[in-house]
């Protein structure tokens, strides 16, 4: 029985990443800023947000951050993780929650900064080549949006990649530093 290409790829992200992203450790840090827009809606809940890294043309997918209602009793907040649907498909559904260093609380509207350093923690080592940082937000009783930020590794210090969402996400940037 043969599974879809996509499934095989996403079924073994850890193994694939080890091959895809292995390389010499470089002290490179990505400061990612994700703006969560303030919305004038009757019922507002902070969105679930997933941030992950893809290496185009390879099966490598690595979840970097997942902000969700992680502190509800019986882990009830995990019920809605699948609404972050693209992330759920490429990575989330293979994970056990909570994920150390990846999962955290939902964030308030405003600019939320999170940093990843190559060779450390969730980012691990990155081999040279093209990558896409993907940010996806899904809000309870609200909408869902996905923004992609392509970049090349290794980056130049001071380099900034910007993109912006239209509804559930505001301005998003990656600032690279030593």
């Amino acid at each position, binding site marked *: *029985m*043969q*599974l*879809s290409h*996509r*499934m095989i790829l996403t*079924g073994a992200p850890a193994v694939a990443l080890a091959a895809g992203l292995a390389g010499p450790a470089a002290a490179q840090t990505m400061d990612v800023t994700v703006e969560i827009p303030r919305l004038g809606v009757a019922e507002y809940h902070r969105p679930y947000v997933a941030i992950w890294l893809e290496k185009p043309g390879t099966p490598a997918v690595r979840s970097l951050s997942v902000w969700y209602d992680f502190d509800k009793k*019986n*882990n*009830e907040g*995990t*019920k*809605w*993780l*699948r609404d972050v*649907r*693209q992330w*759920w*498909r490429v990575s*989330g*559904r*293979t994970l056990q929650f909570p994920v150390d260093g990846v999962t955290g609380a939902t964030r308030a509207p405003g600019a939320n900064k999170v940093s990843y350093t190559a060779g450390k923690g969730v980012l691990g080592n990155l081999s040279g080549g093209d990558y896409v940082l993907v940010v996806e937000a899904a809000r309870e009783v609200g909408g869902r949006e996905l923004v992609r930020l392509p970049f090349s590794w290794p980056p130049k210090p001071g380099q900034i990649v910007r993109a912006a969402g239209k509804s559930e996400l505001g301005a998003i940037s990656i600032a690279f530093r030593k």
Partner: protein
Amino acid sequence: MKTRILRTAAGIALAAVLALPAGVQAHRQWMLPSATVLSGNDVWVSVDAAVSNDLFYFEHTAANVDNVKAWAPDGTEVKIENAFKSRYRSTFDVHLTQKGTYRIANVSDGVSGSYTLNGKEERLPRGTTPENLASKIPAGATDIQTAESNNRNEIFVTSGEPTTTIFKPTGKGIELVPVSHPNDLVSGEAATFQFLLDGKPAANLGVTIIPGGIRYRDQLNQIDAKTDKDGKITVTWPEPGMYWLNASIGGGREGGGAGGPGGPGGPGGAAAGTPGAPPAAAPRPAGPPQRRASYITTLEVLAL
């Protein structure tokens, strides 16, 4: 005379009943799960089950779910909970305590046919199965003609990562083998499924796929596919949503070879009778009973 016509009409209606699962005479059967892609630690699905013309609106009759069973990824049978039959639909729950893909299925195997006793042709009664066939044919019966029907109406739901353990074919009737996993479908992508008939690739099998939401559009937007020599079809999903898939042989249902829409599987109701059968007032159905098999599933296609 009047009495005779009535009795014969009842006989024909019964024949139609025999051919189809759970006493359903026509229209479209379906099961609609509350979700097919699920996350969380205490995962449940609620399923609506009905027989209707429009998909997926419960506007005709509730499906009989007494025979519905569910299997967990490890192959164990799990309970159908909170089953209830209302006027237009039945509903039940399945608690997904394991990670992986579950199968929820209503499978019925029946035998239709006839025999002659004391010079009179009699139909096999409703509820005849391969197992009890012998007991349904009285001593002295001659000219016995029977045909098996295997009907499968099933859905798949996945908690966490999709698995394929529950797709092991039974070798009976029409079955789906996931080249693409049925709980990993996304709009704009192509998906391939293989169909088996009695465990072997079902080549040249008509497969009908209809997106839900019929009530609020003018066209069915039906996708008609034919399986290749390996029993495979490939479909590119035009939009996200729930899709009804049907394949059948021998019954003239949607997706079937003979008959097709407008036959007994299409709109027409109980009076439509068996394919090739004369009008209800005619004394006797023509031809031997046909081997039938039908397959129905509901597929959820997510947005990219």
